[in-house]
């Protein structure tokens, strides 16, 4: 039973970590454009590299 004494706090800590990650994601605007996020995965990554070449 003494295992509970550290297993429960560990479980809680990890849950809390998840909550904080969500709060961070919310505050940094990652939930502002759900439709856009769904479409952006279709964009090709190398577009950003194209830019310095042109400048």
């Amino acid at each position, binding site marked *: *039973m003494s295992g*509970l004494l550290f297993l*429960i706090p560990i*479980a*809680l800590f990890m*849950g*809390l970590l*998840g*909550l904080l990650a*969500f*709060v961070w994601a*919310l505050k940094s605007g990652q*939930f*502002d*454009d*759900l*439709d*856009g996020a769904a*479409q*952006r995965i*279709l*964009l090709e990554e190398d*577009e950003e590299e194209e*830019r310095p070449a*042109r400048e």
Partner: protein
Amino acid sequence: MNAASPTCAVPTAPSGANGAAIEALPYVRRDPKSDLLRLDLVVEGVHCAACIRRIEGRLKRLPGVKDARLNLSSRRLSVAFEGAPERARAIVTAVEELGYRAVPFDPARLEGADAAAEKELLLCLAVAGFAAGNIMLLAVSVWSGHFVGMGEATRTLLHWFEALIALPAIAFAGRPFFRSALSALRAGHTNMDVPISLAVLLAPAVSLFETIRMGEHAYFDSAVTLLFFLLIGRYLDRRARGAARAAVARLLALRAQAVMRLEPDGTTRPVRPDDLAPGDEIVVATGERVGVDGAVVEGRSELDTSLVTGETVPQPVEPGSRVFAGTVNLGAPLRVRVTAVGEGTLLAEIVRLMEAAEQRRSRFVALADRVARLYAPFVHTLAALTFLGWLWWGAGWHFALMSALAVLIITCPCALGLAVPAVQVIAAGRLMRSGILIKSATALERFARIDTVVFDKTGTLTSGQMTLAAIDHGTQEDLEAAAMLARSSRHPLARALAAAAGPGPSASGVEEVAGMGLRWHGPDGEWRLGRRGFAAEVPDDDAPGAELWFTRPNRPSVRFRFHDPLRLDAAAVVATLKARGLAIELLSGDRRATVAGVAQSLGIARWQAELSPAQKVARLEELARAGRKVLMVGDGLNDAPSLAAAYVSLSPASAVDIAQTAADAVFQGKRLAPVLEVLEVARRAEWLVRQNIAFSILYNLCAVPLAVFGYVTPLVAAIAMSTSSLVVVSNSFRLQWSARGALALDAPAAKGRLGSAV
């Protein structure tokens, strides 16, 4: 206004032909953090990843642009750039060159408090979700422990952990409910949030007490799970309405046009209508919309006032005449002095009427709140009786208190709290996909109860756009000849003529005589197309409707008559509404003859013409006194007070701003069929809401005796609550699955009428 065409391959062409584009410069802000300049644009016609790449890629290649981000959900483009603020113009031009319409806007004005409230709810939801998950983990251990003989010390330890998570979580995530319950109690009545708050507060309080005395049962899990479920419903509900309001605001922002202000040095500059001060003078070109209220200083012309008064015949104006925002200048350019909105203007009168109508309209109490008003006192009395009953029976105050608490928890209106939002979210989402935006929280319930539909004519039953109706004393050949002149003009009637003739050659060297018409030196002499007196020497016969005359040498003058055609499906929609037993009325500000014609062709027996805004409101109130529940459909400035006065109201997206603001819902597109769809979805939603409420009450009737007699342990409470919530939510999803075919125009008669109307 076509904000959401289904295909993406062909971006919409810039439709800024009518009037100048909004000057981007006043919208440029300096970001204090990064010291970059920021410009926000509403972009029309973006749908997919290709649009994102096209726009962002193009902008990032512009000199000075540091970042460009397109938000596909809100159709907003935010650009950060450095250097001169004037670069904003190049940014707007670049987006428009790609084929998307872009209009600058002020983010602070478009967002408001809605977004902040939505974020707060989401945060509460996250906290409640986290707490519910972790507490359930511990609670399941405790429940299992009941069967395998968990020691008292271990159980109490687990209870303490539950309390540690639950108490702060409830204090944080319960705030939206506590606030609403408090304000209801202060106002002297109860709503659904009162019993919710009570249960959510009492359950942990008693559980804490139980934990301290090392008792067997703690209800922390019930309280937090309840909160979690309710927050889901609350958040989705808020988001659906927030999205609808944002969409309406976006449509209005897209339509905003600059007005041409006359500067002291005689030049004109495009500015926002908001930036004008009383006393400024603006120039309104031919075919342009008047952007402000004011008085004509110079010029004689005719105005299309159909959006303001409902009248389809153009109104002549001269120096000194009042003009209103929303009218279209059909004739010569005008110089207009901006006046403040003062007493005595039409707009001030409309606003006064609207406020009065809104005050007189009895406040609609949502079904859920009406149920709560009966439910809350009943439940609380029952809990008190349980407590007193057990005391009287001699069961000891601890058992009595726990039983009373179990009653409160088991009757906590979890399913009841979800019954309405679950259905509304699905209904609103479904309507939104077909271009109908529900703005008001209780609109759906009100739509479901109407028994009378009152239509405005111009712009509602009709398309609001002039089209060629007839050619007098002429042939198709005359039309094609006239169209050669008309194609070079921006005048609305000339455009309608050109549209009727279809594609064809355009004469070169056409001269436009402002306010009169068009002149062209043809091979056989001078051709003229324009108003009576300029293009033809005929006496005024006071014929109804707008007209153009066309004269060529040695030929009789030809008259083109224009009218405002009915929306394609107007007849079918009216027939269907009638077939469903709704009373139909037509209230218009237009002339008798025109209204009579429309009423007859649609088969509307009750109609009134030449009504002032006040008379329209009076008629609606007369209907309300007779016990009728009226749906008002209208689009004009003159309809705004009636929209506010009606039981529930609907307005097309082409309506004036003030009408869209007053209406409970806005529909897009050229058809009238959304009226049917709203009513159909509302009726189905109402039916599902009633089912849900009936189920929740039935569930309570079954569960309450268990609680009263002390059989409800936390485990039973958790199972009962989750099941009832799941049943209610799944039942609501039936609204989404119902076949679309059920919404099509019914009645075979409607088909015949649709055919004849086309």
